[in-house]
């Protein structure tokens, strides 16, 4: 079968191999990792007819330049509004195209978004760690971080001109500035003004933003007294507040436990859109009941499934 070899000609920081993540190891200190924007990863893979959780390259605003050393492969670029070109010939974001031998693909930060995903019509050769190819940034285990000079091998690489073209970018894939939360689990540690501030004031993302989480700036959410709780599990979406009153939202590579109180937790569906925000973007929090949160999760899953079904139909009816 065809094997395509790619070389990283240039890479910004925080570029790594990710897949659907490694669920089930939090009890052993290992977060799920996986794509920051989970829906974008699924869309990129499904647009090519691949397994939804297959390994892809997650690209940060730092950008990536890939050179095809040998062979060719069809790729999908999904997530954010990035800019891309092959040897200077512009391509859209949210697009399927083919990269062939001696050509160079350049992906750079565009008008919106913080993360984009490059999926392969083939199998990206990536190290497996604890049943997943996702890179755990703290240790570097898994598929790994990508740096200039690294070579990548795509096995069983397919060239699929029939799939080439634009992939529809749904409105819910855009950066999300309104985040639904449920209070707690330690909201009781916060004075009334902190509980009021979190829903009445905007909070801005800061530059302290990586795969582990993002610190926010806004009014102080200082907890009452000098409280520390026995370490307990935290989640992607936990809003953890340090002693100085600064909140942080934990993301895909978060540490699995922590001793800071959590004032609220963001719904998982909102996190995919939230991570596409950029430093200095402002977000608002809207509290809802856990019952309503479950209803929203189900409703949004139906919308996502319907979108994926249109992708599948589009692929099945394309002419080869």
């Amino acid at each position, binding site marked *: 079968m065809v094997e395509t070899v790619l070389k990283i000609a240039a890479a910004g920081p925080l570029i790594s191999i990710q897949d659907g993540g490694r669920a089930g190891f939090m*009890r052993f200190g290992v977060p799920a990792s996986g794509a920051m924007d989970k829906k974008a990863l699924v869309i990129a893979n499904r647009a090519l007819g691949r397994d939804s959780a297959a390994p892809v390259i997650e690209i940060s605003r730092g950008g990536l330049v890939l050179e095809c050393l040998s062979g060719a492969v069809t790729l999908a670029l999904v997530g954010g509004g990035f800019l891309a070109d092959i040897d200077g010939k512009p391509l859209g974001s949210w697009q399927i195209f083919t990269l062939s031998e001696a050509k160079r693909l350049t992906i750079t930060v565009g008008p919106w978004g913080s993360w984009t995903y490059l999926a392969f019509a083939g199998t990206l050769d990536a190290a497996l760690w604890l049943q997943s190819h996702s890179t755990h940034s703290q240790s570097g285990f898994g598929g790994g971080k990508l740096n200039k000079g690294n070579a990548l091998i795509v096995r069983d690489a397919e060239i699929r001109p029939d799939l080439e073209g634009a992939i529809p970018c749904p409105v819910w894939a855009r950066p999300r500035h309104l985040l639904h*939360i449920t209070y707690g689990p330690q909201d009781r540690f916060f004075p009334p003004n902190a509980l009021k501030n979190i829903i009445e004031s905007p909070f801005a993302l800061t530059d302290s933003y990586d795969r582990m989480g993002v610190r926010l700036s806004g009014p102080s959410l200082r907890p009452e007294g000098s409280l520390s709780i026995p370490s307990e599990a935290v989640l992607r979406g936990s809003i953890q507040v340090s002693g100085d009153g600064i909140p942080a939202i934990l993301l895909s590579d978060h540490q699995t436990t922590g001793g800071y109180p959590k004032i609220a*937790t963001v719904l998982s569906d909102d996190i995919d859109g939230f991570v596409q925000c950029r430093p200095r973007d402002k977000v608002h929090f809207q509290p809802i009941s856990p019952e309503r949160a479950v209803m929203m999760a189900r409703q949004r899953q139906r919308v996502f499934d319907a979108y994926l079904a249109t992708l599948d139909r589009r692929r099945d009816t394309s002419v080869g």
Partner: protein
Amino acid sequence: MTVPSPKNPRFTSIADHALLVEFGEAISDPAHEAVLRLDRALTEANLAGVRETIPAYVNVLIDFDPIETDHASLKAAVETLIKTAKAVALTPAIREVLVCYEGEFAPDLAEVAKRTGLTAEAVIQAHLSGDYQVAMYGFAPGYAYLAGTPRDIQLDRKPAPVRGIEAGAVMIAGPQCLVTTLTMPTGWWIIGQSPTKVLSPLSERPFLFDIGDKIRFRRISRDEYLAAKDRG
């Protein structure tokens, strides 16, 4: 708000996908035992929609798929499990961890001896005498917090972390002990080095310890350490 206890746990619904079950607010043996019982019952019950459970000192976090279940259904199922779990005897496994306390493998041993007013040999004997139990995991993959460091050698952390501490370091801070799995900065006191693999990512059983396991340390010499490392 009433303080939760093993008899009267507190349930907190989190976002669209998690339920926190708390058996106390401060670290205590009864609260942790209730955690271990519920964790075991949850593992055996294999409830629909439960993706993973993460036990900690005084609570268990249950992460679930909101498409398959919800907070109220899960809370009802967990309440039933807690009632039946009370009768279950906990039978922790005993795991042995080898430690070399010699020379460069124990960079902080002398300082720990100085600060505790013991001889280095007495620090080693105290460490070996501890009744350790895996309380929880955290910080990094395979970082198992072992409760049970004897009072005589309990020290606060160093004021500033030291960088680049290699995997396999056996270290203590307060009532806790830990065998590291990665090269990481740490402010804990390193009193030995272990060749025992507590994290083997590629094996069928990647983590040597389950939460609740009892740990015994066994002293080895430098030669035994080097031989064990050679065997891989």
